[in-house]
């Protein structure tokens, strides 16, 4: 991005037509937090549960829920105090849903990585407590790692998830582990916080993470974090394939390719390529 061109909009405009800034911003934040509460495991919630989870009075919650229901972003099961995500969200599904800088910068790098490894390359980001796959380039082998855009798993699961977790400060990792039920949701996903902490330390020390036989038997993955210059982890790149082909040697060969890809990503993002 050319500095200067967009600078004027960085300054907050002077005209004001809303009263208390903090109050208004809080309402918008609460709207987002309410919608983000819903998940595959928690598809429906009562107004009382929502109020408790967000930590706001029931009366305020009900007012927000009425607005969101009216606009189709939440739906009510009849007259019952039971809310689900509304169909109004579907209209946003067809539009590009990624910050242009991450996906655009990652796309050529992902294609190059796939050509170098001939395994599937996945771009994932953290959304709340989940790792969400937002783009991928598939291996040309007919037997290959598959995924789809929007596929999600808890942060502590898989190489990409653990790498995202490793990018968080220790207190956030600890809070995540405290609120997350650690059960095996694949072939051998971790249930022991000690094991997750050990993996986080390994990832931080070596800058990448290798996993085999975790989400599914016979699968193998190598992940690297995609960071900006401030060191913040924006997402992860993962190369994944079947264990018999993406064996120890192939995985070790993929590590420097992924590390180079992450460096190139950083350069491209910073130079707005």
């Amino acid at each position, binding site marked *: *991005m050319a500095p200067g061109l*967009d*600078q*004027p*909009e*960085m300054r*907050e*405009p*002077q*005209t004001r*037509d*809303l*009263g208390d800034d903090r*109050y*208004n*911003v809080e*309402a*918008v*934040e609460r*709207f*987002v937090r309410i*919608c*983000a509460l819903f998940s*595959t495991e928690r*598809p429906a919630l009562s107004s009382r549960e929502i109020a408790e989870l967000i930590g706001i009075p029931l009366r*305020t919650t009900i*007012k*927000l829920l009425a*607005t*969101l229901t009216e*606009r*189709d*972003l939440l739906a009510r099961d009849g007259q019952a105090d039971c809310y*689900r*995500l*509304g*169909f*109004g*969200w*579907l*209209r*946003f*599904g*067809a*539009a*590009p*849903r*990624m*910050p*242009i*800088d991450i996906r655009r910068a990652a796309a050529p790098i992902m294609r190059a990585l796939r050509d170098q490894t001939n395994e599937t390359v996945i771009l994932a*980001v953290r*959304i709340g407590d*989940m790792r*969400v796959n*937002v783009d991928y380039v598939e291996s040309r082998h007919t037997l290959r790692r598959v995924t789809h*855009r*929007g596929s*999600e798993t808890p942060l502590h699961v898989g190489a990409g998830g653990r790498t995202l977790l490793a990018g968080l400060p220790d207190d956030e990792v600890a809070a995540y582990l405290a609120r997350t039920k650690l059960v095996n949701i694949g072939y051998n996903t971790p249930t022991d916080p000690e094991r997750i902490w050990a993996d986080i330390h390994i990832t931080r020390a070596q800058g990448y993470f290798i996993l085999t036989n975790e989400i599914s038997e016979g699968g193998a993955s190598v992940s690297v974090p995609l960071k900006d210059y401030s060191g913040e982890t924006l997402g992860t790149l993962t190369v994944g394939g079947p264990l018999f082909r993406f064996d120890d040697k192939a995985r070790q060969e993929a590590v420097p390719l992924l590390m180079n890809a992450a460096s190139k990503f950083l350069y491209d993002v910073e130079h*707005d390529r």
Partner: protein
Amino acid sequence: MSDAPATPQTVRVVERAIDILHCFQGPQDSLTLQQIVERSGLQKATAFRIATTLAHAGILSQSGPGGAYMLGYLTLRMPNLIRSSNELRNTAWANLKEVGALINETVVLVIRDGDDMINVDKVDSLHLIDEMPVMGERRKLHLGAAGLAVLASLDAEAASAYWRGQDATPDAELEAISADAKQRGVLTLHPSAAPGRMRPYAQVAAPLITSAGRIVGALSVTIPENRLSAKLLARCELHLKASADAIGSRL
């Protein structure tokens, strides 16, 4: 999208936030603050504050400080969550894929919500030219083949009650189309079917009726006129009805 204070402020600001989200409907929409202001009708200071908050929360994203806005991560997550937790969609999905492959036309699963129909999911055809249905769109029953197929399946009393609540009334041609649909279990709108509603495509829709007799939605196909033929239409009618019946029997 006016700034008139009709509701309490907490609600009003959320409505404005949703107005801003609705500015992003094009498939490649990347909007500057000024464009958001123009599309939403909000004042610049309000739009700035809300867009910044939405970007911070992950509903919008920004290409950099002062840069253009796009829909953010959370808007990717929500449609998948809605679809994966919808029982009708999950029951219908395998049939939807099957019928899509059989006819090579985009098949849409449209769910009924009272007097409205909502496009919930679709299987795309392999054609380069295709009608792209808007997902999440809410329409009255009489405004589209899927809703008309539902309407044709309702008993006379329920259908009359529906029409009483609308500004429109069915004309003779629509009555004939509905009667034909009721008899065959599939509704077809030809490109020239209804004067005043000329369209360069045909639509076929089959209602989804549960084993208990509830009418919960429809499968719908839109065929552009350039590849429309009697044979293709007949194939779509046959497979769509078979697929809708198969789904209905499992509901």
